[in-house]
């Protein structure tokens, strides 16, 4: 397993290296996203660079498609506020370490600073980290069922674990957001009925709760 991961990372690096050289003046697409990630007011928790990193990462994981993406849904600002208001000092410290570690690993995978990459390279780097983070995943475990109830999970130790924890948070905030719950998925504040057993085709998408 370790061998396969090393090969994979090597492949990403090999692809990222030359691409990095070729894309020095191709940062225009990034700028658009980064411009949109200028915080409106003062940030409560992140510094501007961290905030933009969360935004870029969230955009790679849950981009705008035919439905709104994580940035459209306000995930970076929500997370910024939540880390300031909810997290203890220790959790804040761990979280900042996680953000730093994930960014460092993506920089490694991309061949140069994550912010300097083109959209495509960024996605490739996140995809490579995602693959590495899940390749050791065995069959479903109790943890993978209950994992969404974050807060109780142990502090991540590797960049891969940090990435999964960040991804989980981003997803949780996205699917709890109004666009995530009502446009991407479907949500009923007051269902008004219990339909215990129906064809999925009639119900359509996953329910947000």
């Amino acid at each position, binding site marked *: 397993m370790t061998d396969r991961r090393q090969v994979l990372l090597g492949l990403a690096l090999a692809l990222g290296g030359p691409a990095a050289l070729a894309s020095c003046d191709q940062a225009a697409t990034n700028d658009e996203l980064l411009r949109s990630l200028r915080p409106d007011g003062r940030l409560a928790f992140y510094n501007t660079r961290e905030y933009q990193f969360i935004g870029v990462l969230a955009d790679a994981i849950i981009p705008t498609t035919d439905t709104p993406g994580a940035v459209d849904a306000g995930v970076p600002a929500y997370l910024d506020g939540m880390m300031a208001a*909810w997290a203890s000092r220790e959790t804040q410290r761990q979280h900042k370490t996680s953000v730093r570690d994930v960014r460092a690993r993506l920089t490694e995978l991309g061949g140069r600073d994550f912010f300097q990459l083109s959209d495509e390279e960024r996605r490739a780097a996140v995809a490579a980290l995602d693959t590495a983070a899940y390749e050791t995943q065995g069959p*479903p475990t109790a943890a993978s069922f209950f994992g969404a109830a974050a807060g109780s999970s142990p502090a991540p130790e590797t960049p891969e674990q940090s990435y999964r924890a960040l991804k989980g948070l981003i997803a949780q905030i996205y699917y709890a957001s109004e666009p995530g719950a009502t446009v991407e998925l479907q949500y009923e504040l007051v*269902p008004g009925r*219990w339909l215990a057993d129906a064809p999925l085709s009639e119900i359509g998408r996953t329910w947000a709760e």
Partner: protein
Amino acid sequence: MADFDAIVIGSGMSGGWVAKELCERGLKVLVLERGREIDPAVDYTDHLAPWQRPNLDRIPEDEVAQHYYVQKTGVSYAVQETTKQYWVKDDEHPYETAEGKPFDWLRGYHTAGKSIMWSRQTYRLGPQDFESNKQDGHGIDWPIRYNDLRPWYEHVERFAGISGSRENLPQLPDSIFQPAFELTAGEQVLKRGVESAFPTRKVISARIAHLTAPTEEQTALGRGACQSRNYCHRGCSFGAYFSSMSATLPAARRTGNLTMVHNAIVQKLDYDPATQRISGVRVIDAQTKEERVYTSNVVFLNASTVATTVLMLNSTSETFPNGLANRSGQLGRNLVDHVGQAVAAGMVPGLDDRYHAGRAPGGIYIPRYANITEHDTDFVRGFGFQGGVKRQGWNGDRAGIGADFKTANRTPGPWFAYISAFGEMLPNPDNRITLHPTRRDEWGMPVPVIDCAFGENERKMMQRASRDAKAMLEAAGIYVVMSSESMPIEMVMSKPGNKIHEAGTARMGADPMQSVLNGWNQAHDVPNLFVTDGASLPSNGCQNPSLTYMAISARAANHAADLMRDGAL
């Protein structure tokens, strides 16, 4: 001349019922609630959509560490940012436990008490539960039998509204039901699998105190049908689940006979040796600390098991130096809860094309079979299971990014099944509540010291329940991903108190030298004192106890009203 005909101490599950019954009998009733007044328009948070709940509904970590370290750990599923107003701040309401014997005392101080936050599971005790103490010698015999309580079960069920299915099970008698919540496709798989592999076991729809076909009496109180939101722990603006707030207190209030005072912490009941009765109820105001005394012809204690016990232990006098009505020495002893956490969980294969809509507020129940229909056990009494089988939603911890990740989450996840045991705990005089000799809370009340542990019978029961849980899921073809079977038994056992079904510390019985109350929940030695919360039960069955508290409260209240009518009180 007394201030009131009756004083009811506590406005929760049992106190609400006493207030309603006494008020409807024409008596002037004062309800003393130690907590603040809840205003549903302000306090209920059931109208908040996910994006309106702050911080993913998480209570700030520092706030948990400071105020909710017991409540949050004990009831993580129900103690959230939008529900924390219903749970006590642990630092303000201390208690102690014996060394090495943790006990979760989980509670809320406000109008309607835990009837706001309960999980609404509603089961009658069966005939066996009134006879088990006598049969196996643990605890003392109940002074009443199932048939004494049966009409009162019917009485409270009609009013409260219970959804469930008729099953004709002798050990779990049917209630008067409104239509049950139907089983999901996954729950039907579990039912078929379990019932064909184990012919004497049943998988039934959970019986819950939710209106599914409200009666005129219920709608007249402003209650409506359950909307399948499953946001019940936030309070229900529809009044669709039973609580004192939605049902009994409004019924009491409309008689014009109810007076309710909040922030009234009862410190002591005064006993008059000349009349051998309670002569006054001493109260301290939670906010102003002002002290006052109320008087009444009769006093009902419904403060919840631990608090009722503390109050009685604190009400000492020359006649009762060891606590009010405690000639037997049993006050504070025989503390029971339910034992739990034998669990199995897994995935139901297939059914990819089935789903559900709405959010059912209950799941399934597997009634007790151990020592009922199956006698191959190394323990006495038994356990039931609560559980459910529903489809998982989105999964943020799945491989993939981008459009693929989004698309994958548009399809609901696997069918997830779990069942979790609730077992009966044997009454044991060594499991007891005492008062700390010196430590007092902010209002001058002695801090309780709880000394309570499970015994060998509970451990054997949970070992068996762990094995059974796994075997039942497997019999239904469910792929088990988590089972307590392989865990050391000490890791399986819940903490005493954690099931929030504490009972037993002022038990009823025929013999005044062995019990605190008679068969009408009336103190043997103090005729105008009644206790009808969990403290009064000689044993606790394995069923969720609230329905029994309701029935026994209504029965005792009507008995007291009869006595008053006849001039006997």
